[in-house]
């Protein structure tokens, strides 16, 4: 993705689109036309702008967000304390595993935080054991016990 960490230049119409469309996209035959009308835009202008916003990476996607756990799958946050001189090599191990959805370096003794997502509950523990075997490091699991909020209400 092109300069994925650089702020994009958005005009007022882009901002209104991003702010208005973070949920509630209508389930009707001409949904973009319905949204465009609400925003005072033409359907083809809304489509063209959504195309630009997704192509430039301002939106990572436009569409349904699925909850993997409702499919019988499992998701867990996990963390490791990785020695600095092995950091890139350990990151490469996780990068090669399709079960790892996200991985972030964070400033803390537990300096690698990642999300394990698998098709079955047993898959989480299996992935944990694979990582531990490959790296010799302890993987702490932080599965959610309760969700108080998850969503996006980002102001563009």
């Amino acid at each position, binding site marked *: 993705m092109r300069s994925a960490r650089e702020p994009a230049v958005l005009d007022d119409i882009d901002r209104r689109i991003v702010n208005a469309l*973070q949920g509630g996209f209508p*389930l009707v035959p001409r949904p973009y036309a319905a949204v465009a009308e609400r925003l005072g835009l033409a359907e083809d202008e809304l489509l063209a702008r959504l195309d630009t916003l*997704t192509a430039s990476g301002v939106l990572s996607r436009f569409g349904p967000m699925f909850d*993997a*756990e409702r*499919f019988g799958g499992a998701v867990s946050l996990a963390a490791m304390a990785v020695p600095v001189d092995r950091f890139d090599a350990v990151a490469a191990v996780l990068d090669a595993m399709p079960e790892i959805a996200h991985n972030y370096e964070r400033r803390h003794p*537990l300096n690698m935080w990642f999300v394990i*997502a698998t098709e079955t509950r047993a898959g989480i523990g299996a992935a944990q054991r694979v990582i531990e075997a490959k790296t010799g490091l302890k993987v702490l699991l*932080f599965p959610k016990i309760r969700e108080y909020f998850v969503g*996006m209400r980002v102001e563009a």
Partner: protein
Amino acid sequence: MTVTSLDALDRAIVAATQSGLPLTPTPYADVAAAVGCDEAEVITRLGRMLEAGVVRRIGAVPNHYRLGLSHNGMTVWDVDDAEVDRLGALIGALDFVTHCYRRPRALPDWPYNLFAMVHGRSRDEVEAKRAEIADLLGPAIRAADILYSTRILKKTGLRITG
């Protein structure tokens, strides 16, 4: 967590839309053509999955960095287990908190049981939001920390096979 049973057509619709809806005037008709059913069926099934929570929402998924929200801090708090649900609901209701969860502690390395993610255009903005959370939690805080992300090492969407 309730697992919702999905049939083959539901799964085909999921597989066809998980990377995005077509940016065409009739996206549901286009998905229907791709999976071999009619438009009304796609609309009905997506509506049902939305109601069941299989679909969390339909819309735009913004990239924080491209919106200038380049600082992200995972704020973590140790509060009494007897209070965590009440406090979590309070923090989750703040409009700047994008994720809020109760998670297990991992003693002795990790004493925190409440996680709330905040984003900002600067470190100061993130710190101000963290201070607002701390004010709300008040004397319930037994320990707290914030973990700033310094690098994205991997970011892929979740993949569900059809």
